[in-house]
């Protein structure tokens, strides 16, 4: 299975649980959902995809969006602006 390289940015509770703000990793994940499942298994993130949104290259995307190598991916916990 061919691996791609992703840049993953973490914010808020995910940043704290991951222990870093950004990481670059290689993964065989096809979709954003695949990638989150892999990371959740590795780091024990409590939030499921039903509570998150995902952005790829600074745009909101569907969980089923196919990932390209070099993509910047952000998993977005429930927001609380204002």
């Amino acid at each position: 299975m061919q691996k791609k390289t992703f840049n993953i940015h973490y914010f808020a509770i995910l940043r704290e649980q991951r222990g870093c703000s950004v990481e670059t990793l290689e993964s065989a994940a096809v979709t954003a959902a695949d990638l989150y499942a892999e990371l959740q298994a590795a780091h024990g993130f409590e939030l499921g995809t039903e509570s998150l949104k995902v952005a790829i290259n600074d745009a909101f995307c569907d969980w089923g969006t196919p990932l390209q190598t070099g993509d910047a991916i952000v998993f977005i916990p429930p927001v609380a602006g204002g």
Partner: protein
Amino acid sequence: MFELSATPLEAIDLKSRFADVRAGGYVTFEGWVRNHNEGREVLRLEYEAYEQLCLEEASRIIAEAEERFDIIQAACAHRTGTLEIGDMAVWVGVSAEHRGPAFDACRYVIDNVKVRLPIWKKEYYTDGDSDWVNCEQCAVHGHAHGA
């Protein structure tokens, strides 16, 4: 017009951008840090923003307001970093020829800013605990994540 600011919004002359001789009504909303939230005593809080997407989504919200309501201009500013009780966390201003659309658009902007901008708030309580707001309801069995 939207901006994220790591320094106090109180120090910014937000109103000055609104001079327009056609404007008859000007509505603003300010969100202030309260000393309590959902029954807990708040000491201070921290906002963290995903800046690039924040700027894009906020521009979209402001453009929607300017399209949906008969206004002249809408603008918004949001703090990041550490805020104390009473500090201004968010500001929205709208000018219009008439007051009705100014009120409606101001409310539209703040309602959408609160649910759509990728900004997160961590509350620090007087009892020493802290929580990312909104995450507690989402995580299984409540407040476990803060532990």
